[in-house]
């Protein structure tokens, strides 16, 4: 039992040496023999003692288990590792570079140690721009060194934060509890804001702008002093008045026009008759013809109008047929007679031009007749 105690004490002393900076002990409580029970009991009195196996000895060839392996595991296997950092310069401006060297010393296989990835460490990544530089193995010192170029992102950076280093200690049982973390001490920094570059330091070195001619022109005169007011829509009342004004003005105009032109109103209503519209348009086109042609064409237009408007069946009606049809349709006798007279005069002009009583404007007569017929109140 004394031998065991001595061994445990030796291992504890060795372990404390390994904890050169800080070591997080792993408590192991698995009893495999009476001797082991004693070992654990004793371990409760001696810090770290119970974490070591009395069987594992100094065997470093144990492979680190996947179970419990931290993401930051460096690949280092051994019972003792020490991590230190060295930085220069420690007084600098924001964004200026500094050289950081991470030195790892230990008893295990140094070749297996991977470069600590500072970019994955939040406190490093948020405060520094990080470039990886060279790495060195120094067998004489049993150490490996990793260089980094760090650039503080802002003047608020106060230190290079502590660097955690995770290694595997094969002497700790069970092995999944063998991962230990040691920290390199933080390095205080003095970071100052960057100096502002004054225009005077760079003026004159850059060539003159080759600007287009329009840039070398000024607008001269008092118009440059003008004060343009920003655009604004009129208020709701003004806007309403402006929007309602034109239709109200138009309505007023229409009322006045109706009062002053009652005939025109009536004519306009009559013109809404489709047959009358066609007839009036056709008659309007006859103005340039001579009297004979006008008589012939006006008679045809009127016959067409009577066919469309009053269902006259005859293609070329005689004056008597016209008068009779108008009367049958409900026209006043006077208007019927006027219609018959128009057709009679047209016939006279066509077939006996020498006997033409008067050189009437046939178009005008026909137009009056159409309007008179449209004004007539026809039975429905």
């Amino acid at each position, binding site marked *: 039992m004394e031998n065991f105690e001595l061994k445990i004490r030796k291992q504890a002393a060795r372990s404390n040496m390994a904890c050169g900076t800080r070591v997080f002990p792993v408590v192991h409580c698995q009893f495999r023999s009476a001797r082991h029970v004693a070992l654990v009991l004793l371990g409760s009195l001696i810090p770290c003692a119970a974490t070591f196996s009395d069987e594992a000895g100094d065997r470093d060839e144990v492979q680190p288990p996947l179970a419990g392996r931290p993401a930051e595991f460096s690949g280092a296997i051994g019972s003792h590792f020490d991590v230190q950092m060295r930085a220069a310069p420690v007084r600098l401006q924001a964004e200026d570079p500094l050289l950081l060297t991470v030195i790892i010393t230990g008893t295990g296989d140094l070749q297996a140690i991977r470069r600590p990835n500072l970019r994955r460490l939040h406190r490093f990544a948020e405060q520094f721009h990080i470039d990886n530089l060279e790495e060195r193995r120094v067998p004489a010192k049993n150490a490996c060194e990793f260089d980094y170029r760090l650039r503080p992102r802002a003047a608020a950076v106060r230190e290079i934060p502590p660097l955690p280093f995770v290694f595997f200690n094969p002497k700790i049982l069970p092995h999944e509890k063998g991962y230990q973390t040691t920290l390199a001490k933080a390095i205080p920094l003095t970071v100052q804001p960057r100096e502002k570059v004054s225009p005077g330091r760079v*003026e004159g070195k850059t060539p003159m702008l080759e600007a287009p001619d329009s*840039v070398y022109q*000024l607008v001269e005169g*008092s*118009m440059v002093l003008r004060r343009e007011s920003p655009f604004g829509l009129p208020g709701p009342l003004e806007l309403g008045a402006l929007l309602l004004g034109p239709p109200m003005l138009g309505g007023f105009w229409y009322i006045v026009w109706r009062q002053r032109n009652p005939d025109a109103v009536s004519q306009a209503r009559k013109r*809404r008759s489709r047959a009358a519209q066609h007839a009036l348009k056709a008659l309007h086109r006859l103005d340039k013809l001579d009297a004979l042609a006008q008589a012939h064409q006006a008679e045809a237009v009127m016959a067409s109008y009577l066919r469309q408007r009053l269902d006259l069946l005859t293609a070329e009606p005689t004056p008597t047929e016209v008068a009779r049809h108008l009367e049958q349709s409900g026209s006043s006798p006077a208007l019927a007679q006027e219609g018959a007279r128009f057709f009679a005069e047209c016939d006279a002009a066509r077939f006996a031009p020498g006997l033409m009583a008067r050189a009437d404007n046939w178009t005008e007569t026909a137009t009056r007749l159409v309007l008179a017929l449209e004004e007539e109140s026809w039975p429905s």
Partner: protein
Amino acid sequence: MGPLLLAISLLPKTVADAELLRQAETLFSAGTAVRDKPDKARPLFQRVASCYEELRQRGAHNPELYRSQGNAYLLAADLPRAILAYQRGLRLDPGDPSLWANLTYARTQVARPGPRDLGRLTEASVPLWLPHLSLHQRLLFFFCTYSLGWLGIIRWWMLRRTAALAVGVLGFSLATLLAGSLTLALWSERQQSLHPLVVIAQDRVPLRKGNGVLYPPRWETPLNSGVEARLQFERGDWLQIELAGGQTGWVPRAAVLLDAP
């Protein structure tokens, strides 16, 4: 900014606007005469720009002032302020071809490194050869064509003449177009008031994901002076901006010029 304020402070407060304008024109002529010697010409152009800035602060507000001020800033190699002045002028007169030409030239001077076209802007949405109407003119023409439309329709109702109907339809069509254009312009003006122009005033300003230096840059490519953006939010000394391509991020207020009233 220091030389600018110094130059303004050296100007007597009692100088009348017209006298200040005359000084600016004289200094500009002097600067143009020595344009081949940048070390002599640039301070002169800077003073010209200061004169125009003083006039602006006294209330002058028109496209001609901003065109002249932009030219002076551009020749003084102050690219961000030149762009800001041109943009102020274009806000008053979006159809000014000289302002557009000079702004386009100024934009070509903005360094835009990297593969990403951060902050690259589109050109004028309306062809410059089209006649441009100010908002006042558009409103006036709207009421003219609107009235014409009503008169045409009412005349058609009186006489049933096709020509009157055509005049009415044409009047209402033009009025509708002008009303649409006016609405669009007013909406655009409102957007510009809600999201004022921001011009990056320093080189290599990272566009960060948050309002602090501890936030990482959104892209590796930083923004250079002269890049234009629109203000989205303000939080302390930080501004969230949106670039022309829709990219958003945060920049310190000290690194930008803000077109705030």
